[in-house]
């Protein structure tokens, strides 16, 4: 039960699409893929992470996203999350992090206004 990670260049920067469960077993892979994005040099305005395929996320997933946000801030990029499922949204709310992240209904919305 691994997570599937797709990384894509988009107009505003990078799009990471996650599918599966992001837990202690799979979040190191997610972390690695996001680290690759930051190695691709400057020019990107945003990192968009599409979570529509993520049914389950635990604190290791949250930690990965918090770290991604910190790295985005260092590089003057925005981190935008898109299409959280109700159960993932619940985890963000439990962690009181819903207001820290920019969350969009759809990945396409997350690419607008940059």
């Amino acid at each position: 039960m691994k997570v599937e990670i797709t990384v894509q260049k988009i107009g505003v920067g990078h799009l990471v699409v996650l599918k599966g469960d992001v837990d202690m077993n799979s979040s190191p892979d997610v972390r690695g893929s996001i680290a690759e994005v930051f190695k691709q040099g400057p020019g990107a305005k945003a990192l968009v992470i599409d979570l529509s395929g993520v049914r389950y996320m635990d604190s290791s997933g949250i930690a990965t996203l918090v770290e991604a946000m910190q790295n985005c801030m260092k590089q003057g990029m925005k981190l935008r999350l898109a299409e959280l499922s109700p159960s993932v949204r619940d985890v963000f709310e439990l962690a009181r992090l819903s207001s820290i992240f920019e969350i969009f209904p759809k990945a396409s919305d997350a690419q607008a206004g940059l």
Partner: protein
Amino acid sequence: MSGGGVTIENTDSRQETVTLTVPSHPRFLYVIRSALYPLIIDAGFRKRDAAKMVLAVDEACSNIIRHAYGGQDDQPITLTVEFPEDRFLIRLRDYGKKADPSEIAPRDLADVRPGGLGTFFIKAVFDDVQYDTSVDRGTLLTMAKTKPQVSQ
């Protein structure tokens, strides 16, 4: 992992609990979640609450792997689910480094950093959380939640 002998012991006369033992490798967290979720639903909890309870147990297991076993992936984690009348009772047993209850403090959520959320989730989701380090080896963590009232 290579195959080993099975040791299955006789149990006493009435089996009233569900017991699951897995190696302390993160790939078995999914197995624990998969077994636990239907038990919680069956007990009458709503899906969203069930998902949160599964999350909390998953966090407790992650903590066992990281803190009690220091990342060793071949040590036992045993989940036991009991079904008293009004509560849903989960026990997690490890045989690693004992948890220091004074260290297990959920972090201040205002401090946005990776980590420190696990114990916060556990305490937010369950009504009653107890780390018992008086057991012979390791820690016995008990998490309990009152079942929702059913209107029939």
